[in-house]
């Protein structure tokens, strides 16, 4: 879906400082990339395509402008994969506590 409707929960994007305008104290790898910003909110326009400039109303009620980059953006966070390096720790510690492990 690349078309958002008024009131949709969307994400906008802006370049805050382009390369060349970064603060002097940042390391080279940071100076070589722009400072970017994303904010989410409700779309103000009747309709808008991803990639166009839009206005949103943030949760704090502010009107903010930027390029529409996502509609109902994913939170992304999860619990990842079970980690073999961690899975046996509990059993090992119990064994030590119960006198069956090597102290």
């Amino acid at each position, binding site marked *: 879906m690349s078309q958002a409707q008024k009131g949709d929960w969307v994400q906008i994007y802006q370049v805050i400082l382009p390369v060349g305008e970064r603060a002097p104290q940042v390391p080279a790898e940071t100076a070589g990339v722009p400072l970017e910003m994303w904010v989410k909110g409700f779309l103000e326009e009747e309709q808008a395509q991803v990639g166009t400039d839009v206005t949103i109303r943030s949760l704090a*009620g502010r009107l903010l402008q930027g390029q529409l980059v996502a509609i109902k953006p994913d939170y992304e966070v999860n*619990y*990842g994969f079970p980690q073999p*390096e961690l899975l046996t720790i509990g059993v090992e510690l119990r064994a030590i*506590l119960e006198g069956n492990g090597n102290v």
Partner: protein
Amino acid sequence: MSNTSYQAVIARKPEIIKKATNIDYAAFESGEIGFDYERMMSQVAYSLNKIRQIQQETGVGNTPLLELKNITALARQLAGPGKGARIFIKDEACNPSGSFKARRASVSVYHAKQHGYKGVVAATSGNFGAAIASQAAMRGLKSIIVQEVFDSRGIGQPEILEKGRACEAYGAEVIQMTVGPELFYQFLLVLEQTGYFNASLYTPFSICGIETLGTEIAEQTLLATGRKPDAVVVTHAGGGNVTGTARGLQRAGCESTQIVAASVDLKGLHMASDIDFNRKSFTTGHTGFGMPFATSPDRADVPRNAARPLRYMDRYVTITQGEVFYVTEMLAMLEGLERGPAGNTSLTAAFVMAQHMECDEVIVVQETEYTGAGKHPSPQLSFAKKNGIEVRRGNPIENVPGKAIIIPEHPGQINIKDINLDRVRQSYLRNALGSVGTGALHPQDIEFLAAETRLEAAIVEKKVREIQANL
């Protein structure tokens, strides 16, 4: 409309911050670099009784102090005869928003409301954002949180993404930025555009809110064990946690309790580096903040930092990322408490320290925090592996920040490293003299530096002469 270029906004910083905090910091300054910290705390911050009342109104504090009996038993198995202090933990995850940061936010948000501000703004990638958003929701203020989240590939640190989600859950506008200290520019711009209160982590309001954590630890430890805590271990980053907790303990008469700061060792990783940013698995409680804030506290978003950790820490220790992940599992599996990450940094240090203390002594881990998607060891290690970090069981001495996370094979391999506080004091003095150069200092300056470093005035004078001679 005023000029919103980077240079113009940074140039307006003093007036923007003044309007947004409403504290006259200059009133507490004297000499060249001197500043009367205690007078600022007593005149600007609230009284302990008032803080308790403010926190009671929004359900902050009075968290349980839990004895970690199984972890204590494990430590005693590893310790020599007669050794192995009782380990307690303050379950700060029980605060609204899930961490001790609710204490810090509570007074700031109260103060903002009292002074007619319509909203609060905070620059934080940590638990403080959710704490501010939660307290603001309770008191009917707007909140805006400015976070450093992504590297230039647009990849977000999982823990920070989760904290951003939590802020939104409490109704905050979340401004997500890529890596870089110029986040501060965006923060100033938001303050200027909204006229909201600067709910900084580092005002007297924020720091005094943590003092109740110290007083509660004193009271609860006495009730549970009949003695004052022999040591309190505090996860250390920006220094508010150490400062507020220690001040509270002092107020409660625990002058001889040892205050131990603990940070995850991230030596070698640059905090403003777009590359290093996603090569770490801890976003706070690490040396990347802990060292600079101990040696140069006035680097914050207010002119004078109310968090002055070097005044309060009796000892500063580091542990590795892998050791903290291991202890996080230990806490869940042996004590039935799924918590962390940050609080488990101090637990890891306490687990080692307890083994060197007498069995009738008491060591208190000063906090837990909520865990969840992104914050938990499994997403963090999944993320680390995806970013090319080696993860394996082994001896933690093989740990290399940003390259290898070593999960201990045995609890006996967990160790702490002491940071030499004399060296920290020396770099503190060098930083403090940076702005004066070889200029003469006033008696108030020497008095200030002595309080900051806990050194005799005569020793400070000698060190100052040595440093200035080498400039």
